[in-house]
């Protein structure tokens, strides 16, 4: 039996992009070893698809320079390498006489490389970290690099992790144009978003139009939606771990991007021999662009003034230090926030004069600060210790002043209110990675989280004349203790069978009550030959917090609340089956994955929840129910070459049953898309130009259409006597089929590259809702509400 020994030291890699690498592999496919190097160094491999065919590698280097490792790998081969910036270019040694075809992504083709086109026949870029699906035991896992994210066209040209993932089968985007995810029939709050393994609660800017993750700061992401590693728990549907870049040891690099909606600056480099830094800053321009317009509007009136300012920013900063061959430490900070300031003032002067001033200040975001130490305990066991603090905050202030002066009599009223919504988590975790032998890789660890939830507390201060009214709602801070432990073994039984089995145990203590969850995980892979694999998986997941949102937008008023009172922790069981194929050259891959998921103790607003006053807290407005989702995802992918991409089709069902909703009858989930097709294409036309296209088509969202109306009773003070909509079954109406094409084109020059993009390129106005209204002729009509026409955008990135 060929030995499988591959010490990837993934956790080391995640922490330091230093050019020293550690690789231990015996008789492994070259591509597998390259993925380890890509992950540790952040560099891409560029080589002919034929060059490495069937090549196997044995190497054992520990904390050696990259060049040394590459020399060992290619010592007895006829391949030579050349490190150019972020790329490691492989080619046959000079005696080879072949013609070249270049298929590189924009930033990887170097002048010196293209000046020798006769050296290679077909060049592909391998920046994929992802192991081919046939080689792993996992179902529904996805690894995306920063470049793959950037290559996915997005609204306003803002590359976005979540919008890139929306192109994967089994994921619904939710509201059009928004960075939301509904995975395999789950709700939007059932996805755990992590930044370097630390949870984030608010993952959106601008009501969800952009995600909080700056694509320039990302190294890669790990995404799991079916078979979930035992390390993760806490959400029902999916887990997204965003890994940020560490600084380069080779020198100082950076880039500056200027787009229509935001700009970003990224720099990284060494500090001495053993320390690196990396900083990425992104900020929106909306306030700068709107300032002249507002000034113009305000100058047109002496009395009335409008105040409006919106901005978002995020900052990623990371310092990595290598203490010795065994220990590497890091400290990082993420800060993202949105600011919205609105208001108006108006006045009238004369014998009766008045002044009115209204100000609203919104401020919300996330702060994550963490430090960690990676320590190699012995040859087979490494440990990662992390301490982190994560804070979600939103503060909403409202200040209204009214002053009336009539015949020298002044009546002044002032209303001040402030609503705060905070979550503070202190996290301490230890993760271990143990390879007792060549067939097993055991991961185990645990963590403790001290939660502090302040769902939403409002203080009001109302003054009229000398009379003051102070009120504070009864919301209080919830303290909760959470502890988790896990163990899993990735066990290669033989050449054909591979199994990953694990268990996650969690405890969640709140209000003197302790909830616990056992989450067994199992995935099995059978590989009848090198190009085929059949897999099966089971995963249970638990969730102790949920998000309350009265709208489909991501707003600072959305509240994360813990499981309290009569509500039980949510949990889900999911069974998945999959079949996978890859071509001999590994250029093509195909898969089919089926799943069946049951969800329990789901929480949602009950019908007519708004009739329960907020003083009753959320317990009175919410109800508990269950859900079911099933489906099958097909995907065909071209992995290497000038033209890469995938075509996927999903057939899915998702429904919910709540005793206090829809009369207790089951109803379809809002994003119950029966049919979904994604086509994603990246075409490297030349050294300078590449074209990216993404087409999405899916069954329309479900909508609660209220077609009938009745006569208003006409009582109740001053309210209007218009017609009243009659109750109908929830989500019983399906909106028309949704489809959209997004395009982007990247054109490189000597100093950087331009990105041109078109959102909704053929301007198909998709229906997002149906409303009742009166048309211009005064006739009552139903109208399709259509959002987002074609939106062009442009950006330039300067690299240095």
């Amino acid at each position, binding site marked *: 039996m060929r030995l499988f020994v591959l010490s990837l030291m993934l956790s080391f890699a995640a922490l330091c992009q230093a050019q020293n690498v550690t690789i231990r592999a015996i008789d492994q496919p070259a591509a597998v070893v390259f993925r380890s190097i890509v992950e540790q160094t952040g560099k891409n491999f560029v080589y002919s698809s034929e060059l490495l065919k069937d090549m196997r590698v044995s190497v054992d280097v520990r904390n050696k320079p990259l060049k040394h490792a590459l020399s060992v790998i290619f010592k007895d081969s006829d391949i030579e390498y050349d490190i150019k910036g972020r790329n490691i270019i492989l080619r046959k040694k000079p005696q080879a006489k072949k013609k070249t075809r270049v298929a590189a992504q924009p930033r990887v083709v170097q002048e010196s490389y293209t000046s020798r086109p006769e050296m290679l026949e077909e060049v592909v870029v391998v920046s994929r970290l992802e192991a081919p699906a046939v080689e792993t035991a996992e179902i529904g896992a996805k690894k995306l690099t920063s470049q793959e994210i950037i290559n996915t066209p997005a609204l306003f040209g803002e590359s976005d992790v979540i919008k890139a993932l929306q192109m994967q089968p089994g994921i619904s985007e939710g509201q059009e144009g928004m960075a939301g995810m509904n995975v395999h029939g789950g709700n939007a709050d059932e996805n755990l978003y992590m930044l370097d393994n630390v949870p984030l609660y608010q993952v959106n800017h601008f009501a969800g139009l952009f995600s909080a993750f700056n694509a320039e700061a990302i190294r890669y992401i790990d995404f799991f939606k079916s078979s979930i590693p035992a390390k993760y728990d806490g959400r029902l549907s999916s887990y997204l771990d965003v890994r940020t870049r560490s600084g380069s040891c080779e020198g100082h690099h950076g880039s500056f991007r200027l787009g229509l909606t935001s700009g970003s600056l990224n720099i990284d480099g060494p500090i001495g021999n053993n320390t690196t830094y990396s900083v990425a800053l992104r900020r929106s321009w909306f306030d700068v662009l709107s300032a002249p317009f507002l000034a113009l509007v305000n100058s047109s009136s002496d009395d009335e003034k409008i105040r409006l300012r919106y901005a978002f920013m995020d900052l990623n900063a990371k310092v990595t230090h290598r203490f010795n061959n065994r220990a590497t430490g890091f400290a990082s900070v993420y800060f993202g926030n949105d600011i919205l300031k*609105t208001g108006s003032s108006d006045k009238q002067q004369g014998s009766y004069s008045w002044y009115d001033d*209204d100000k609203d200040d*919104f401020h919300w975001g996330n702060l994550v600060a963490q430090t960690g130490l990676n320590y190699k305990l012995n040859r087979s066991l490494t440990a990662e210790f992390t301490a982190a603090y994560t804070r979600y905050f939103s503060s*909403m202030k409202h200040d*209204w002043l009214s002053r009336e002066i009539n*015949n020298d*009599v002044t*009546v002044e*009223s002032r209303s001040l*209110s402030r*609503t705060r*919504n905070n979550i503070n988590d202190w996290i301490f975790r230890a993760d271990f990675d143990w390879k007792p032998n060549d067939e097993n890789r055991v991961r185990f660890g645990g963590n403790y989280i001290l939660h502090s939830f302040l769902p939403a507390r*409002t203080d*009001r201060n109302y003054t*009229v004349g000398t*009379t003051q*009214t102070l*009120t504070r709602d009864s919301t209080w801070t919830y303290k909760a203790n959470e502890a988790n432990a896990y163990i899993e073994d990735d066990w290669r039984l033989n050449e054909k069978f591979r199994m990953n089995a694990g268990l996650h145990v969690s405890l969640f203590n709140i209000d003197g009550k302790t909830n616990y969850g056992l989450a067994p995980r199992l995935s099995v892979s059978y590989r009848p030959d090198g190009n085929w694999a059949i897999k099966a998986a089971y995963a249970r997941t638990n969730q102790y917090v949920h998000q309350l949102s*009265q*709208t489909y937008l991501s707003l600072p*008023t959305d509240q994360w609340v813990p499981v309290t009172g009569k509500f039980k922790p949510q949990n889900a069981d999911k069974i998945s089956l999959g079949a996978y194929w890859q071509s001999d050259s590994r250029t093509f891959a195909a898969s089919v994955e089926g799943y069946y998921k049951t969800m329990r103790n789901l929480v949602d*607003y009950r019908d*007519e929840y*708004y*009739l329960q*006053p*907020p*003083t009753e807290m959320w317990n009175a407005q919410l109800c508990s129910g269950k859900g079911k989702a099933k489906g099958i995802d097909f995907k065909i992918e071209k992995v290497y070459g000038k033209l890469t991409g995938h075509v996927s089709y999903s057939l899915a069902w998702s429904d919910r049953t709540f005793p206090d909703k829809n009369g207790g009858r089951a109803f379809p989930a809002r994003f119950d898309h029966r049919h979904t097709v994604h086509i994603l294409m990246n075409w490297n036309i030349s050294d300078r130009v590449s074209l990216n296209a993404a087409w999405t088509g899916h069954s329309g969202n479900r*909508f*609660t*259409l209220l*077609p*009938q*109306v*009745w*006569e208003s*009773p006409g*009582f*109740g*003070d001053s*309210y*209007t006597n218009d*017609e*009243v*909509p*009659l*109750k109908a079954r929830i989500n019983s*109406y399906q909106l028309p089929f949704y489809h959209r094409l997004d395009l982007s084109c990247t054109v490189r020059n000597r100093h950087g590259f331009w990105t041109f993009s078109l959102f909704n390129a053929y301007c198909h*106005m998709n229906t*997002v809702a149906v*409303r009742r*209204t009166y048309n211009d002729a005064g006739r*009552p*009509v*139903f*109208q399709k*509400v*259509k*959002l*987002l026409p074609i939106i062009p955008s442009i950006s330039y990135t300067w690299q240095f």
Partner: protein
Amino acid sequence: MAILRYIIPVLSAVLLTGCYEDFTPEIGTKPVLCLNSLITAGEPIELKVTRTWMFNDENAERNHDVEDAFITLFANGKVVGTDYLPKEGDRIRIVAESQTYGLATAEVLVPVATPVGKVKVSPTVTDIWKGDENFFHYEMLADVNFNLYVEMDVNDPAGAVNYYQFGYNWSSPVAFDGMQMFYVGDLKYDSEPIFKEHIGVFETVMGNDEDTRFAFFSDRQFEGKTYTLHLNFTGNSYHVKSQYYDESLLDCTMTLYLTTVSQSYYNWAVYKWNVDEGVTGDLSDIGLAESKWGYSNVSTGAGVVAAQSSSKFTINLKDFLKTTLNNK
């Protein structure tokens, strides 16, 4: 004005909205009966029976009367006639049947009025002008502007969930020109936090908790106890328009009403506030929030059968006005 409440709908509906397209949804509907009634203790019951219609059916919009409905009225389980006067505590059940539109039923408990408790009135004069009786000055003898701060106790009976509506009106001498001499200005609803108990965080943040004239509330926060309403009436005015001074000119009163309403009435009021003033109503119109259907306690989901009983307290302002004028 809180412009924030307009930001999201404006951004969504104007900046991002490309267009609206008229259409007729292919969805099967069946009209049902609708019952509307507000039952007041001691007064005959009025009931309006109509039917539902497809929103874009213009003919039905103009005429949705039901010709063939047969109504049966029950009071405390017994059939009663149309001349029945409901009493506090009666359980009224209405059954309507139509061969065309089917059956509709609704039931409501006529609430027992809660007497107005202790009332404390604190007037503050903000401006006063008094003319010389010997000098006829623009037909005015006096002009008094004042605020009234009223503390009114609600002694909530224990053992039941009660819903209330606060109301007021006033009476005034009439001047020779036919105008009232006494006017109540503004009730500052913001002074009484319980008038905002139905407003959640989202609406508060959007600025929708201000300038609202909503005076329904429940006893959820003071069940079985006494709660004091803080009622701040500002800008009240008393203009004495007469050529001669007479104490009858001082006969100004203000009446405070504490109306105990049925749960259906309270729910209907909260629903209307949400769709008329709440921002989620706007968002649901453009698909960014869940649709809100009308609150109904009728079996078909159409109509509201509500009930109410009132108690009142009258504030006599004569002494206050007299003292004020005499001290000037």
